[in-house]
Structures are given as C-alpha cells and as structure tokens.
C-alpha cells in the first residue's frame, strides 16, 4: 500500500478499512481515522483493475483495487456514489474526535507562499534527484559519443576499411584533438540545465501554488494538537492523525512540514499559533517525532 516513504524506507503493507454509509466515507487504519461527508465526494472513476473515489480533501483520489473488493462490493460502491456523491448526506456525520482541554487549537488556511515549499519538497525527493542525474549522465554519454560512434560506424561499413591496428591510434589521438569538443559542449549545456533547474522548479512551484490556491475549498481548516496526535477538520470532513503516523519534522521559514506515511505531508504554518500555543506545539512535536529527522 502506498509508495515508499521519502527516506526510501518501505513502511510495508498497512491494513486500511473503508466504510461507505449514509453519512459519507470513513477510512480507518492504524493511527489514522478520517471521515469525508458526501457533499465533499465528487464521484467515482474506474479502470480495468481499480476503482477511484474522488474526494475534495487532499490532492489524490482514493484508489481501491477491484480484485480485493469483489463484484458485489464494487456494485454497492457504484450505487452509493451514484445516489449520494456531491449531495447533502441523508445521515448526520459521526462526531468529531474530542481532544482534551490542554490541546493546542488553531485555524489555518495556507497562503500561496506557504504552498510553494510544499510543492518544492514533493518535487525534490531523492528519487527525482537520482532520475535527474541519471538522465544528465545518459544525455552526456549519448551526445558526446555520437561523433566517435558515427566515425566508428562509417569505419566498420567502409569497403576500403583501414586495418584496426592502424586506426586505433588515430582514434585515440582524435579523442584528445576532436572528440572532447562535443563532450565539452554537451557538458556545458547539461551543466547549464542543471544550474537553471532549481530556478525552473521554483517558478513551476509558484505557478502550481497559484493554481492549487484557486482550487482549494474556501474557508479555514481547524487543527487540534494534543498528546495523542493531530486532528484536522474542514467543511464536515475530519481526520485524526496519531503521532505514530508521522515520521519527520521540517522547518521552512515559518512553515512546519510534518511528513507522514505514504509520502503525505501535513503543513502547519507557525503563524497560526499564539506564542504560548506555538511553544506547546513545538514541545509536542519534539516529544513525539524522531529527533534525527528534525535537523534539515
């Protein structure tokens, strides 16, 4: 279930229960309980092997493998979605999880500027970095070997082929006199691309942040933090995230990015807290999150 986490640690399969009823979709997994009411469910989509539930909360749809569901359940889901998706729920929603009076409470809405580092973080993971370096190396090797490879090919098919023993020293000499030139040009271009890439990433993240902000549902989300975990709620949807679900704490300016299982993140801008609440939030995070991932 889910891709490997950011650090490359594979969390292994996590049993997750989904329940559709008159109120909406309830999802239960270890350290995680979330609820999305019917008005926030946009509908469903299918391919040969999967059923997708499109929800307005979070960026990705819920993916259910049909093979695990059985025909009857798939048909039931289709019926439920057809009848209720996007409409007021016929049944009142389950109660929101309660937190103790000592919990830290705040409301938040991300600004465009705060979305940028989150998008950048998603783009700049070790897999993407490795893929970029591999691509750069492949382009470098391919383009700088193009000219010698062309000469070697013409040599090989030449009806008046010069014997290999006489050709090799000349080719070796050409490596010093000629072949390095395309290699140097390619290296310069690739170096330029790699140098410009972070700038392009930032530009793209800025544009994407604008789009996401425009699409995000209006209104503020509530966030409640206590010793058991974090509760977030917005527009009737809510989620209880146990501290065990989190494995990283990152600080970008005034924004804290808490990384979760399945590569998900919970961004928390520190500006939403009163000074005293902020200190308590930081103390809670420090107590429950592994220290080695804090420094970055």
């Amino acid at each position, binding site marked *: 279930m889910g891709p490997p986490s950011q650090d490359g640690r594979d969390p292994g399969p996590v049993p997750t229960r989904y329940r559709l009823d008159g109120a909406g979709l309830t999802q239960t997994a270890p350290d995680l309980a979330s609820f999305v009411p019917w008005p926030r469910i946009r509908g469903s989509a299918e391919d040969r092997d999967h059923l997708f539930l499109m929800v307005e909360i979070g960026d990705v749809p819920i993916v259910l493998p049909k093979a695990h569901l059985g025909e009857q359940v798939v048909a039931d889901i289709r019926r439920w979605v057809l009848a209720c998706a996007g409409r007021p729920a016929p049944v009142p929603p389950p109660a929101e999880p309660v937190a103790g009076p000592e919990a830290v409470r705040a409301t938040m809405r991300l600004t465009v500027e705060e979305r940028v580092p989150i998008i950048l973080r998603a783009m700049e993971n070790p897999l993407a970095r490795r893929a970029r370096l591999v691509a750069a190396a492949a382009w470098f090797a391919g383009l700088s070997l193009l000219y010698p490879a062309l000469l070697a090919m*013409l040599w090989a098919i*030449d*009806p*008046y082929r*010069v*014997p290999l023993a*006489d*050709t090799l020293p*000349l*080719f070796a*000499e*050409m490596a010093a*006199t*000629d072949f390095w030139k395309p290699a140097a040009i390619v290296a310069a271009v690739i170096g330029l691309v790699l140098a410009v890439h972070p700038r392009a990433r930032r530009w793209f993240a800025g544009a994407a942040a604008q789009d996401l902000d425009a699409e995000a549902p209006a209104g503020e989300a509530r966030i409640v933090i206590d010793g058991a975990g974090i509760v977030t709620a917005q527009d009737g949807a809510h989620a209880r995230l146990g501290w065990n679900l989190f494995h990283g704490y990152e600080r970008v300016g005034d924004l804290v990015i808490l990384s979760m299982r399945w590569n998900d993140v919970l961004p928390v801008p520190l500006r939403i807290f009163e000074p005293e609440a902020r200190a308590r939030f930081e103390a809670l995070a420090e107590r429950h999150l592994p220290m080695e991932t804090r420094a970055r």
Partner: protein
Amino acid sequence: MTDALRRGRAMLLLSYLLAIAPAHAEDAPEAIAEPAPDAIATPEAGDALPGPTVLRLDQGFVLDLPAGWVLEEADDDPGDATGRRVVRVVCRTPACARTQETCTLRLRTGPVEGADDAARLAGLHAAPLSRYFRLRAVLKSTSPGASIRRPIGPERFGPRDWIAVETEAAPRFKSGLFAETVIGGRYLGAICKTCETGPVRHESARALLASARRPAWSAAR
C-alpha cells in the same frame, strides 16, 4: 584556422560520408602485368639505357631521373614534363623488368599555406582524421586487402623532409611508397609502385625523390 582549410576539412568529411573519394586514374591499384616473354628472352642489348636525365616540372620543380628511368609520353625532349599536373616516370632497367617500378609525381595548382616549409609539411596531415583519410586513400590505391608496411610519418629523402607511408599489397598487386613534401610553398606528391616483395624496396624511387628541388625558388630567396 583559415576558411579554406575548414572548408577543405568539411569537404573531406562530406565526401567520406557520401562514400565518394576523389578518384584519380593514377591512384588506381596496379595489378602486376606479366612481362612480355620476348622482353626477357631478348634484352635490348643494342639499345643503350638512357643515361641520367634532368626532369623539369611546372612551378620550377626539378628532379634527377636515375639511370634507366624515362618520362612517359615524352615529346622530343625526354626531360621536359612542364605543362602537366601529373607526371609519370617509369623504370626501364633490366632489374625493373621484374619489379616494374613506376613513380607518379603530382603537383597542386595553389600554394600550401604556412610560415615555412617545415610548418607547411607538418600542416598537411596535422589532424588525425586527415592521417586516417590518407591511410585509407593509400590502401585503396594499393590493392584490396592491402596493409600498412611503414606507418605514416616524416621521412628524410636526401636533404629534405617528406611525409611518407609505405603499403604492402595483396599478392599480384604492386606495393607503394606514398610521399609528399613542400618546397618553397609548393606541394609535390609522389606515388611510387613496385612489384618487389623483399625487404629492400623503392631504392631508386627514394633516390629520385631525394633529388627533388626548385632551383628557381632557391635562387630567388
């Protein structure tokens, strides 16, 4: 790098890509012709071998033809080879009845660019690609399946430096000595062929090339 040189190099690459190479009749491989039996049976004893001749070419080039060598298609004057860009001389000594030695001398119409003759000569095949094409050309000119006997490089014939390469032909083809030099800014190329397969070859051809000079240019200097 001059424009002409760059264009020349581009043409070289282009012609190679199109698998066409400038073909000269004198570059074609020479198969060994069976000597006419009566030529061996009855050597022309009465006819004295032509003595050493001074061969005059265009652009003021002068060479001493060794004894027994003659200019092909000579007019009245056996030493006058002016007005030709390609000059062929043939050995007619009894020894050459077996080796069938010939040399083809070639001039270029334009001068070779460079500071002095040494620089001009070095510039002829400075690039490894140019040396590669030179090897390809001399092998093609020798015979199918020919090999390089002496790698391309500077060689001294008499008082002058040449860039020379020797080929070893397939059986029944003539092996070659291909040499080029620059005297006073002018190019002189030579293709000498022989049937000889032993270790000693091209002796009189080397003597011929060693005698190459441009007295008019030397006097003017």
